[in-house]
């Protein structure tokens, strides 16, 4: 069935035009000056709501921030965008090729060719380039208790920030406990598992890799540490112990270094690591690191002041 188009509707539309009433919108309102919206919100201390204040004692989640319609206040938008920008900037930053030399580390690189490939090919980031492997095997100190490795991971910003301090403190803590320490090394385009090959070539009992962790909102400067006993290609995540959130607002590097040295010592004593490692004997010294995958809460800092 098909009906003819409506003649009456066409006629009425023409009449509307003829009467100059064709604007499909109603006439505009005459507005008085728009009043200033109420001031919101988080996390400027002078503007913070009572709820946000109380919540901040328990969580870094952005709660009590109010809403305009169903969206964020401008203040919140800017804070959020600043946090996002910090995270993205940390991911995008690359470790300069000469940075390791400048800081007196042996400079190694994985099989990764560029930054995009680093993000897309974790398998290549877990193996040394042929040149690096050969040079490392030929020159490194061998048969050590602990092989310390600094690496870029997913935040070169963190590596270049607290990296050298953490590395130096960790080496000192290990030596103070009587462990022999391998040649300090710094690896570019490195994933966690690169510690297996580096440690294996040095015939180290424990390999410790300290590397920039995947940034969270507003936190591009955190380091993580992974330790593995008897490093060798083929180790899995179950063989490793880790500590994350190493930075000034989380676990300070000096504290982290001490706990990591205790962890290494525990591995040497029990000759194992990962799920099989019993952390109970040194739980007090390890602190939160005794709990697997522990993340310290991070204080949320206001990033935008206008």
């Amino acid at each position, binding site marked *: 069935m098909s009906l003819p188009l409506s003649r009456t509707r066409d006629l009425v539309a023409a*009449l509307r035009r003829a009467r100059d009433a064709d604007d499909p919108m109603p006439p505009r309102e005459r507005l008085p000056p728009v009043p200033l919206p109420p001031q919101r919100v988080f996390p400027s201390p002078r503007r913070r709501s009572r709820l946000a204040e109380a919540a901040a004692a328990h969580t870094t989640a952005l709660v009590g921030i109010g809403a305009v319609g169903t969206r964020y206040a401008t203040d919140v938008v800017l804070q959020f965008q600043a946090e996002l920008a910090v995270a993205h900037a940390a991911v995008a930053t690359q470790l300069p090729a000469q940075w390791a030399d400048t800081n007196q580390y042996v400079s190694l690189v994985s099989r990764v060719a560029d930054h995009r490939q680093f993000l897309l090919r974790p398998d290549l980031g877990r193996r040394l380039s042929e040149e690096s492997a050969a040079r490392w095997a030929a020159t490194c100190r061998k048969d050590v208790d602990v092989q310390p490795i600094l690496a870029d991971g997913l935040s070169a910003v963190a590596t270049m920030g607290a990296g050298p301090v953490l590395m130096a403190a960790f080496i000192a803590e290990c030596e103070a406990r009587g462990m022999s320490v391998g040649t300090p090394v710094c690896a570019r385009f490195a994933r966690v598992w690169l510690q297996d090959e580096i440690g294996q070539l040095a015939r180290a009992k424990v390999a410790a890799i300290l590397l920039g962790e995947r940034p969270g909102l507003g936190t591009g400067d955190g380091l993580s540490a992974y330790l593995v006993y008897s490093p060798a290609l083929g180790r899995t995540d179950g063989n490793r112990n880790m500590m994350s959130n190493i930075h000034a607002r989380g676990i300070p590097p000096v504290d982290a270094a001490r706990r990591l040295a205790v962890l290494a010592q525990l591995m040497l004593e029990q000759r194992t690591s990962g799920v099989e490692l019993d952390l109970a004997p040194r739980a007090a010294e390890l602190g939160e690191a005794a709990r697997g995958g522990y993340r310290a809460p991070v204080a949320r800092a206001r990033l935008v002041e206008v």
Partner: protein
Amino acid sequence: MPVLEALLPKVLSVRRLSGADPALLRAYGADPERHRALGLITVDQDDPAYVALDEATKHAGVDVVFARSFYAGSRHASGPLSGEFLGVIASHDPAEVDAGLDAILATLAHDACFYGANADSSIAVFPHVIASLGRYLSAIAGLAPGDPMAYLVAPPMEATIALDFALKAANVRLVKAFPPPTETNFAASWLTGDLPSCEAAAMAFAAAVCDVAAQPRER
């Protein structure tokens, strides 16, 4: 909303009875000898619905056996499915009833409707032109199927003033007047003439309703 925007009718219910009881058929004006299936529809605007039922008689083998407006219109409906109109079409063949209902729905969706005559559409006008009457309205109007007709509705004051403008705007004659009060308290009139005259009369009617709406005390 600006003036002369369409105010679309809402279909509130559509049902079909494929084999209605003879007593029911008789009670609603159908003939059990010729009719077996009924199509029923309720709408929140009555005049577009009368036009739609008439349209159905042109597209399907159906008769309009019942069509009534409800007192005081859809703002005072007896229930959410009532609106201000119940129409019933009938046929011996349920498929014809379906075809008739489809034509009614299409007409209500795309053709016949009231229009707002003032800014908030609190005044409504129905300046509808039927290019070619069906069997239903032609019979009531005393015209022949296929004749053109202007079907003009507005509230009492507006409709009365506007009818005068419509009659003087073109070569048309008044077929039937429905002075107030009607069931829904609107006033209506049916005019005929050739198609361009009906069109001119209908638009003169619509324009006049808008003018009365804008200047209700202008002597």
